[in-house]
């Protein structure tokens, strides 16, 4: 119990630090006044714009000291109020934007993670069983090449081959399309993220599998007359999964980073592309909100990974 409390306390501390730094950076390095009013913000001499400036300052508490604003913002954020989009007409609430876009990004990430896991496990099993042989060496080389390719380059290559030349996947994402069709649209993006992740997972799982396969109980399983695939999947995989699970969980954050680029290339209106757009438009509340959400997701995932780990390994359960 104490263990959990420690972890949770650390997580909260982390979140607070991250949010404070982000908020601080946004407001110190950026200029919210400028964002809202544009060049008018500097025009203090003109009485009309001066009044406007005062109005805006009051409305967004820009006069109050930074820590006060931070606490207020934090409170708002916790209750779901993420401010408004400065740079969009009418200044609609940020939360609306987030609500609209998050499902797409989540679909993308879930699909990518599933694909990566589904690809990496058999891949690892095969290469572990054939460790040292030619097929294994070729596989290692291929992984290496794959991981050297930046994700945006990979995205472009895949788009070129599968969307443009082969026409298997559509080029644009249309929100009104039926669910299955939308999945197809997201598929290539998911694959782009999944492939390098799968390579990383596979490499790790393969190493652990090879170690496990040297153990005595594997020899015992063989002596029972089990077939090779049975030995691998029924006996060798589970004890080898610990690092795998940890890496898969922790990598989810990395996937989020990948989604930013991939959403842009494949024109998927999710959180990632939204982040890029709002950065280009200098719409800080949006940027702040998205960054915070991502950090939150990160921390929560880490805690979940810990829980999952203790379930998988009965020896760790207390």
């Amino acid at each position, binding site marked *: 119990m104490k263990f959990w409390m420690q972890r949770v306390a650390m997580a909260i501390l*982390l979140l607070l630090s991250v949010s404070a730094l982000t908020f601080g950076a946004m407001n110190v390095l950026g200029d919210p006044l400028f964002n809202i009013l544009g060049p008018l913000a500097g025009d203090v001499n003109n009485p009309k714009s001066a009044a406007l400036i005062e109005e805006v300052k009051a409305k967004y508490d820009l006069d109050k000291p930074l820590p006060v604003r931070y606490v207020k913002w934090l409170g708002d954020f916790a209750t779901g109020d993420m401010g408004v989009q400065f740079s969009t007409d009418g200044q609609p609430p940020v939360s609306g934007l987030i609500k609209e876009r998050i499902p797409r990004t989540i679909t993308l990430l879930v699909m990518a993670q599933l694909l990566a896991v589904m690809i990496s496990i058999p891949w690892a099993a095969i290469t572990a069983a054939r460790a040292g042989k030619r097929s294994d060496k070729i596989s290692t080389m291929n992984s290496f090449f794959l991981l*050297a390719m930046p994700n*945006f380059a990979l995205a472009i290559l895949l788009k*070129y081959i599968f969307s443009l030349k082969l026409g298997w996947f559509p080029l644009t994402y249309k929100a009104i399309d039926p669910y299955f069709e939308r999945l197809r649209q997201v598929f290539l993006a998911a694959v782009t993220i999944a492939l390098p992740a799968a390579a990383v997972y596979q490499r790790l799982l393969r190493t652990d599998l090879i170690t496990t396969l040297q153990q005595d109980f594997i020899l015992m399983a063989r002596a029972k007359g089990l077939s090779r695939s049975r030995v691998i999947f029924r006996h060798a995989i589970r004890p080898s999964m610990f690092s795998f699970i940890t890496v898969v969980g922790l990598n989810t954050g*990395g996937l989020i*980073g990948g989604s930013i680029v991939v959403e*842009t290339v494949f024109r998927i209106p999710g959180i990632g592309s939204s982040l890029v757009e709002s*950065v280009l438009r200098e719409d*800080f509340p949006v940027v702040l909100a998205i960054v915070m959400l991502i950090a939150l997701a990160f921390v929560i995932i880490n805690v979940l990974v810990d829980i999952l780990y203790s379930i998988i390994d009965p020896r760790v359960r207390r």
Partner: protein
Amino acid sequence: MSEETLTPSDAPETEINAALQKKIGWGFWLAISWVIFITLLAILAPYLHLKDPRGYFIDIDGSGRPPYGPSFEHWFGTDKDARDIFARSLHGARISLIVGFSAISFGFIVGGTLGIIAGYFRGWLDKIISFCFIILLSFPSLVLAIMLTALLNRSLFTISMILGILSIAPVGRLARASTLQFSDREFVLAARQIGASDSRIILRELLPNVVIPMSALALLGMAVAIVAEGGLAFLGLSVSQGITWGSLIQIGSDSATTLENAPWIAFFPILLLFLTVLSLNFAGDRLRSHLDVKESSL
């Protein structure tokens, strides 16, 4: 699958010596050669007889409307504004490589210093520094980079700094771990007994040893920085007005029709980027396993 081995445990001395002398492999040198090659090209780019990277080489009468495919005139072809890709690629290398190099250097200096301090002095200093590392690592790095580019100006220096900040944590962690490991060794204790000051110990005993495992990380880190810059440039967030590989790739892939009909615009910069990253990764990887062998047989 499982084998029974009976070899007695005393391997002859000659085997250990052989392992120490194991070469780092021709692949390593090949990779390093490429990196040096592309760096030289980048440095010398303004002095080579390249076409003007910002010039428009429209030649309606001769070759029709741009984009022009690869030809003797334009080795990598041109984009749809008839700018020479080859020249732009080499010029693009300049920013990409400078950013890569500066970022990792910054990360090494700052991260390395912090890591060594944390590992050497331990205690609350270590706790604070480690916590800072953890904070830096709680973001996907691209997100952090994007956020910072949003706030700061986009000069070469700033972008390098931003990516440098990102590499502080991984470098720092390794430096700290290395320092912790070496601090327990006898030569440090010996130095301390003589009465050497902390800074002397750090500089003369620890630093040279810690640098060795970190050198492999330097190569890998540079690759990561180059990719990160490429990503930022691709999104339009890198050095403003700068030609970098990422921006070239973005130009070549922004519209589907361009990508479909004139793939070379994006593909050549992709090729250069890929080769460079691959070489750095490979060299870093080989260096690391080479050093591991030496370390484990000491």
